[in-house]
């Protein structure tokens, strides 16, 4: 049998971190705003119940905030980083291998513990006591199944925050109840493709032939199918796969009408893309520039442009990317 993997995560982590120091926030709708205080990036359960969506712009939810006394915080990443590290320190006393997956999620090696559920419950209790944030735990023979277990445990209070899916009969019961869109690694596009094939649940995805999954999505989807079957494909501690492409896209806040304005916006995106490349120690061999007119200006002339250029030699230099952007814009601008 494969080694049990646990994932422990803290729901609404930023809100939980704020609540540690301000107990008056308990049972109160709370949201934490993005960097520029523009939109909600974390919501307490009470705020979610008010219908405040992830990423909701602040100016669109002002009436709800006023009506329900929603408490608002600017994000304090120094604090969240400190709390996250403390939570991981507690995890490290419960497992010899802890892979920090994100600021609020870690995978843990749960092999060798006789009563995994009791071990996970004690870990939750210690995180709550020592650091003060609630966490939930999912356990399974693969990371994907552990994630499923975690999602299910989060939604059903009967599990008291811990679901162990090492038992095949438990997995068989759970997977038909998990929407395919909630499976780790299945994004919006894949979900739509799967829906056309009548695949709506994690169980249906598990039963899909691996080869078909590869054809439909990619190696990633094939891996997901195998992982749902209980065959580990994503090892603990494995570094994320190297990125093959990255994109920087924005919709214009105010309409852009001339070539120079569009050019300067694209130059800014290219600068950001170059930064991202360097951050990940990558260089780019091709670049695609695209832009199009507003889909909402009905009845007005529309234009869509997309140009791809080869970058030789490959580069992550901002100046090279900006130069390439200029070439693309000049070649594609409507005459």
């Amino acid at each position, binding site marked *: 049998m494969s080694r049990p993997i646990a994932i422990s995560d803290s729901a609404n982590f930023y809100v939980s971190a704020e609540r540690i120091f*301000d*107990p008056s926030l308990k049972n109160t709708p709370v949201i934490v705003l993005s960097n520029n205080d523009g939109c909600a990036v974390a919501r307490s359960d009470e705020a979610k119940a008010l219908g405040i969506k992830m990423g909701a712009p602040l100016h669109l939810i002002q009436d709800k905030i006023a009506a329900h006394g929603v408490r608002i915080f600017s994000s304090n990443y120094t604090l969240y980083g400190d709390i996250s590290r403390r939570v991981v320190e*507690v995890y490290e006393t419960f497992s010899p291998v802890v892979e920090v997956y994100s600021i609020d999620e870690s995978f843990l090696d749960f092999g060798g513990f006789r009563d995994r559920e009791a071990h996970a419950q004690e870990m939750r209790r210690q995180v709550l*006591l*020592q650091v003060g944030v609630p966490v939930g735990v999912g356990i399974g023979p693969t990371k994907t199944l552990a994630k499923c277990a975690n999602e299910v445990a989060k939604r059903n209070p009967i599990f008291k925050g811990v679901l162990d899916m090492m038992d095949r009969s438990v997995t068989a019961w759970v997977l038909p109840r998990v929407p395919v869109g909630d499976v780790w690694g299945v994004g919006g596009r894949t979900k739509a493709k799967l829906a056309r094939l009548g695949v709506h649940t994690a169980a249906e995805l598990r039963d899909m032939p691996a080869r078909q999954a590869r054809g439909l999505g990619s190696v990633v989807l094939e891996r997901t199918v195998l992982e749902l079957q209980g065959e580990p494909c994503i090892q603990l501690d494995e570094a994320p796969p190297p990125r093959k492409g990255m994109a920087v896209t924005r919709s214009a806040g105010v309409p852009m009408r001339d070539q120079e304005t569009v050019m300067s916006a694209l130059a800014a995106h290219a600068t950001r893309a170059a930064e991202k490349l360097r951050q990940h120690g990558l260089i780019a061999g091709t670049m695609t520039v695209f832009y199009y007119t507003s889909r909402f200006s009905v009845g007005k002339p529309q234009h869509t442009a997309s140009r791809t250029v080869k970058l030789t030699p490959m580069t992550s230099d901002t100046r090279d990317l900006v130069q390439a952007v200029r070439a693309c814009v000049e070649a594609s601008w409507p005459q």
Partner: protein
Amino acid sequence: MPVHPIEKPVRILGPSQRLALTSVSAGFPSPAGDDLEEEIDPIAWVVRHPTSTFWWRVEGDCLWDVGIRHGDLIAVDRAGKRRVGRAVLAVVEGAVTAKILRKRDGRYYLAPANSQGGFSEIALTPESEIWGVIAGVVRRYDLA
């Protein structure tokens, strides 16, 4: 006595804060004063559990008699044992306050420690919660 969380978390960062430790007698000059003992990191000496210890700033003097004063920084250990007689941070009606945990006639109280008076005792209700136990205090004095 209200307390305020310290925005930038204080953490022990490497050995830079290790100092030579000598005993200081508060009464007579110590005859062994020139015997250097071990090195000590004062913050690590206070903080026994870095994972569960948080720093707060004290406002008010309700714990004056136990040596905690307005403006002090206190280290509070969430994992510390809640024992009667210990200075604790408690959550009362959503506010965090520093008090001494007392027990009388089988009931728990949050008591001030200031013989000057002016601070009241609060009964510990099921809704109130002990946030942590005060592990140490850091104070500095005026040099001007």
